């Protein structure tokens, strides 16, 4: 390989192929020794490059590879005909060997053929990148309906880095963009298309490269800015499944437009501190955050706190307490420790909290930790029978508040129509739930068109019946109120206890939920929720059992009380917290990456100091000086020869680029540059250039700043080694 740029391309290509193999192996075990595949791929890329330098046609290369595969097949077929020993499983051993060999051969053929095309045709770079990207997107996310936020790899990485899932996706995308950028940059600026006319040799000028970089980085920044700004509100406010955590009176925390955004990212862990065997909703458990009950126009909004005294609307870091409601029977105390992993505005707990107390949080992993002491429902479903809806002790305005009917009379009419065959209110309520369960179609993107003042529930209930929890809860509430059942919409989390372990419940973005509640005398606010039978869009993600186990271990008091070195010499404990990178460490990682880039850049800029041949050293130095002059805005004019350029920027009547003449000699004669001569030239060059720069009509601080920026810009390093002198 003739120049450093070529070496860089080769290395980058090898890295990409190794990364591909590693990624495939970690996603789906290949089964063949990965180091062997690594070596094969390097050999394949090298062979591809070498083949491209020959006069072999595409047909010839493909035929050769085809014959290689066929020959291997025939060879093993023939080997199988040999009278091998049955006793020692010889045939099976041969099959095992064949299996590995074919995998290695396939790797070689892919690397070799693709590299041949890469070095032969410029367009291959783009086709390869496109094909690779499509392959990976498909491999990784096809089973999750292309929802990158639902990928295990993303949530695992987010967890290990202690970052938001969205931030993790953005970082992955940034790294991907950077690699692609450098790859394209290097690929397009090389002399790799041998045997072709000069037109196919693309050699960008520094200005072109810089402009491309600026445009690409600008585009990326714009994309990320838009993406992040769009989702950042959601990240902060936890809009997931259409459920926000807004606590302001007069507004609704719910979003009817789209339920997208729910991911498998863990948001909190709830540790039940006592047995809750009387849970009437088993196997489900509901954690309430807010309740919307005030009908403002055509929508429900958060009411004044006197209407919903059982809803705390307290920040997780704040203190909350209230009196126990002695009018309610069938309630029992339950303590819950709640460990918040992502920012939350409102503390949540099992209905209804008596106190919320902040706990000591000495783990950087958790945003906040609090203990909720609730009086939780403890009744069997039969207790609901023969009870009145509503509370006889309620004042008139409370009654009116929870019975306020929706102005659209269709809700009441439909409710009455559906329940005409039933006598009691409980039967009627159940009939409505049954209707919605059977008829609704669960989708996170109902795509209903509605204006700001419109009722967003009507297109669901009286339209295509497509919606998500927010629509279901509102429709139930409006219809209940139409039947005189006091009701409201509650928001928070819903989880499946069958996925919990040892009373630890892992809550995720996916578990954000809205549900309807109706008040039953002596029982309090009771959940009336549905799970539609028809599902349009749903990507099921089971709770990450390993993460839950890790969290249980982390929350266990023993974590603090037990000695930390128990895992020594104990295989079962040794790999714990292997990847536990804390958020604080991320800054260090970024810093290290910057430092590494700087070091690499510095090496590339000063590549002429490397043990190279004298002429190469000279070329590299010349290239460095040219690039450095660009930072002082001294550029070679269009059409200007190197010789004229040298004359134009003469300093103190001396040539600052003496090596131009030497280079000319090197190119056009049999002149041999001795090391001594080269060393002398380099020395002179440096001194004179230094003098030239220091005499530029600029302030010293500006010159220093420009020199610093010169070293900071990673493109400069590539420009220096990539320049065609």
């Amino acid at each position: 390989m003739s120049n450093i740029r070529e070496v860089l391309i080769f290395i980058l290509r090898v890295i990409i192929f190794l990364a591909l193999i590693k990624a495939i192996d970690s996603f789906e075990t290949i089964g063949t020794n990965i180091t062997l595949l690594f070596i094969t791929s390097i050999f394949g890329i090298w062979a591809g490059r070498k083949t491209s330098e020959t006069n072999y046609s595409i047909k010839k290369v493909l035929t050769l590879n085809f014959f290689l595969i066929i020959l291997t097949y025939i060879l093993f077929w023939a080997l199988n005909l040999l009278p091998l020993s049955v006793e020692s499983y010889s045939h099976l051993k041969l099959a095992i060997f064949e299996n590995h060999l074919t995998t290695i051969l396939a790797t070689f053929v892919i690397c070799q053929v693709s590299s041949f095309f890469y070095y032969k045709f410029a367009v291959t770079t783009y086709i390869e990148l496109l094909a690779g990207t499509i392959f990976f997107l498909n491999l990784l996310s096809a089973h999750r309906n292309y929802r990158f936020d639902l990928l295990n790899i993303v949530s695992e990485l987010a967890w290990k880095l202690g970052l938001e899932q969205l931030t993790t996706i953005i970082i992955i995308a940034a790294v991907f963009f950077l690699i692609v950028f450098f790859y394209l940059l290097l690929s397009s600026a090389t002399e790799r298309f041998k045997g072709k006319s000069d037109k196919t040799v693309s050699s960008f000028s520094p200005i072109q490269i810089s402009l491309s970089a600026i445009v690409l980085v600008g585009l990326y920044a714009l994309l990320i800015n838009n993406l992040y700004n769009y989702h950042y509100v959601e990240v902060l406010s936890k809009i997931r499944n259409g459920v926000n955590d807004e606590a302001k009176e007069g507004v609704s925390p719910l979003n009817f437009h789209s339920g997208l955004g729910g991911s498998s990212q863990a948001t909190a862990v709830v540790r039940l501190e006592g047995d809750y065997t009387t849970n009437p909703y088993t196997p489900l458990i509901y954690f309430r955050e807010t309740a919307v009950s005030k009908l403002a126009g055509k929508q429900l909004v958060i009411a004044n706190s006197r209407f919903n005294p059982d809803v705390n609307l307290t920040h997780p870091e704040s203190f909350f307490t209230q009196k126990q409601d002695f009018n309610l029977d069938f309630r029992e105390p339950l303590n819950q420790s709640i460990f918040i992993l992502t920012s939350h505005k409102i503390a949540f707990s099992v209905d209804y909290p008596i106190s919320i107390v902040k706990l000591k949080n000495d783990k950087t992993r958790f945003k906040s930790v609090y203990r909720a002491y609730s009086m939780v429902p403890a009744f069997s479903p039969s207790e609901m029978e023969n009870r009145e809806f509503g509370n006889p002790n309620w004042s008139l305005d409370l009654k009116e508040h929870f019975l306020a009917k929706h102005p659209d009379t269709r809700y009441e009419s439909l409710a009455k129509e559906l329940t005409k065959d039933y006598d009691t209110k409980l039967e009627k309520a159940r009939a409505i739930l049954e209707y919605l369960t059977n008829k609704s179609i669960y989708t996170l993107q109902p795509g209903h068109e509605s204006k700001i003042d419109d009722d967003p529930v009507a297109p669901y209930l009286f339209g295509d019946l497509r919606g998500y929890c927010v629509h279901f809860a509102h429709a139930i509430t409006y219809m209940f109120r139409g039947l005189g059942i006091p009701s409201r919409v509650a928001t928070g989390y819903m989880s499946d206890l069958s996925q919990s372990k040892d009373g630890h419940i892992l809550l995720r973005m996916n578990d954000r939920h809205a549900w309807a509640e109706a008040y039953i005398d002596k029982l309090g606010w009771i959940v009336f929720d549905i799970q539609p039978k028809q599902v349009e869009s749903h990507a099921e993600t089971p709770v990450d059992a390993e993460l839950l186990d890790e969290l249980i271990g982390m929350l266990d008091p023993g974590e603090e009380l037990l000695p930390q070195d128990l895992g020594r010499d104990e295989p079962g404990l040794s790999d714990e917290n292997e990847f536990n990178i804390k958020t604080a460490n991320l800054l260090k990682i970024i810093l290290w990456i910057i430092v590494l880039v700087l070091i690499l850049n510095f090496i590339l800029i000063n590549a002429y100091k490397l043990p190279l041949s004298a002429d190469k050293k000279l070329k590299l130095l010349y290239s460095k000086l040219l690039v450095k002059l660009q930072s002082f805005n001294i550029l070679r004019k269009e059409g200007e020869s190197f010789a004229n350029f040298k004359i134009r920027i003469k300093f103190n009547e001396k040539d600052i680029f003496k090596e131009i003449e030497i280079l000319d000699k090197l190119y056009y004669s049999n002149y041999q540059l001795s090391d001594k001569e080269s060393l002398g030239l380099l020395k002179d060059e440096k001194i004179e250039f230094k003098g030239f720069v220091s005499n530029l009509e600029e302030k010293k601080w500006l010159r220093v700043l420009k020199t610093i920026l010169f070293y900071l810009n990673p493109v400069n390093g590539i420009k220096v080694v990539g320049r065609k002198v």
Partner: protein
Amino acid sequence: MLRFILVIYALTIINANFLLAQNADTNKSAMELLYEAYDLQASGRLIDYRTKLQQALKKDPKEIRVHMSLADYYLRHVGHFRLALKYTKAAERILYEEYGPPPYYYRYTQALHSDTLSLLSQSRLNLDDYKGALKAVREFKKLGYPGDWVTSSEAWILLKINRVEEAINIIEADLKKNPDNFGNNSNVLGILYSMVGKRKESIEVLNRSINHEFSRGITGNPATPLNNIGEVYKEIFIEDKSEESFLRATKLPDGCEHVLPSLNMALIRISQLRFLEAEQSLINFEACFAQYPLRNGEEHKALLQLVRARIALHNGDADYALKELQIASSRQQWFGKIGTTVNDFRAATYSTFGRALKIKNNHLKFKIHNSVAEFLKTQLEIIENKFKSYWFNRRARQILSEDLNYFEDLYIRHTDSFLEYPTLADTTSGFRAQTLRKRILKEIAKDDRAPARKFYESYLAIQKAKSLFGGGAENIKKLNELISSLRHKKDALLKLELMLALLLNTKEGSNRYLELSSKIYEEHKSALYNAGLKLPVNTSNITARDLKFIKKAGFLISNKSELNYKISVTTTKNKKVINFYKNNRLLYLEKGASIEEIINDFRDKVFTKIIYKKGIN
């Protein structure tokens, strides 16, 4: 100050009982809390028990019995083995710090140390650290602590690391020395005997073990030997007794704690095409397991999903099967307490995955497309599925031959294996003919079970049938022979596979094809559809255009003779109605605006049986 006032205010109004309880606990010693915790455990309030133990631990982090109780709690009730190991290690360290290293001469310290070693061996075993578990058990033995469980535990660990003969010797030696220790040893000995082919001895020992466990009353664990004897009966093809044993095991309290009896029962039922009953056994297990509120069943969910995927697949619901397999393969699974290894599970999952993708492609073959884009999408999906199916089958074969001792799971109904033996030909057909033949010959030579021989021969015959020339007349003859020699109900699934292989080599539309395919459909309505083969039907009142769609949807139109099945298309109230009859009795119908709108749903009705409802989980 404000904060102080708020706290005081809160303290005065918060539930008095709660505060009293909290205050009362703060004034108690660690030992008092520990005894209270034991009471809570006895009354089944396990989370309260855990909370109380944790309070005791905070009170006195050096109290060894609290550590051991917590270790036991995480080991037995929760299945969090790392925490169990951590507490055990902490207990061991405190013991060493307070009393020095072993040996100990006082009963109390000996008891503490022996309990620690017992917990250590169990935790390590569950974390697949067999070497560590063996070390703990041997130390226990070396120090001469009393414990009748120790020999069987040692033998079990040896079994896990394939030192079967050594394990048998240890148990037999112990039984000679302590004949009274039969209860603990017999179950493991039964398994070991069956592993070395001493099936008669195995059944005898396990029967005695069952009786022994029953005789222990409430403290006995008869479900384990019942499951093991069921497995032995299954191995020797006495399915009735096998199923009976599994059923008995599932009805016992300890039988619902572990998944194996239910799972084994489901597998037997699947091989007999009793899919609804198979699913019922899984449902019953889950319902029963729900009584353990602290465990989320993560240790068996993957296995259940694998079996559910198979049930769905056999009934033509490939989408559900693929979804279940996808989740099953990403779940964690512990194997310390069962004979199965992670490689057994992987091989089984890959094998089923490969089959599921093949079946999905066969379904797509009969899909009617309403647009070019849809058609292209399907073609891409077919290519992707083909590649994935090849890959998964290749992986299955690789694990079976490389990681599982040169395909030791080929031994039909291998007790540790989760392979589906009647359909295993799908995976084995990928080997070169010579390789498979030689491997099977070796297995036949050492396997004395006559019914197993039919499975081996079936694999070879099916491989030939799927080859380019179908193996010729000789193979057809062999297939016919095998079909007629198999047991009617007990080998129903294998028989079906053989009939499908035969049909594959029968000319479409020939009398033999008409007869055989109808018979297959009669046996199981999804079989033809899964294999990508057409069902012959008579037609009446169908326009040429409609006929075109019906032909594409997996039906072979044949009106030259009267067949069992018939399709007709009628129009009522501007709607097309497509009807499917069996012997002139209407079985299924589908209504819609046009034939292309309803044909896919109609085909699904005719060929699939939806066992699992699609809903949000």
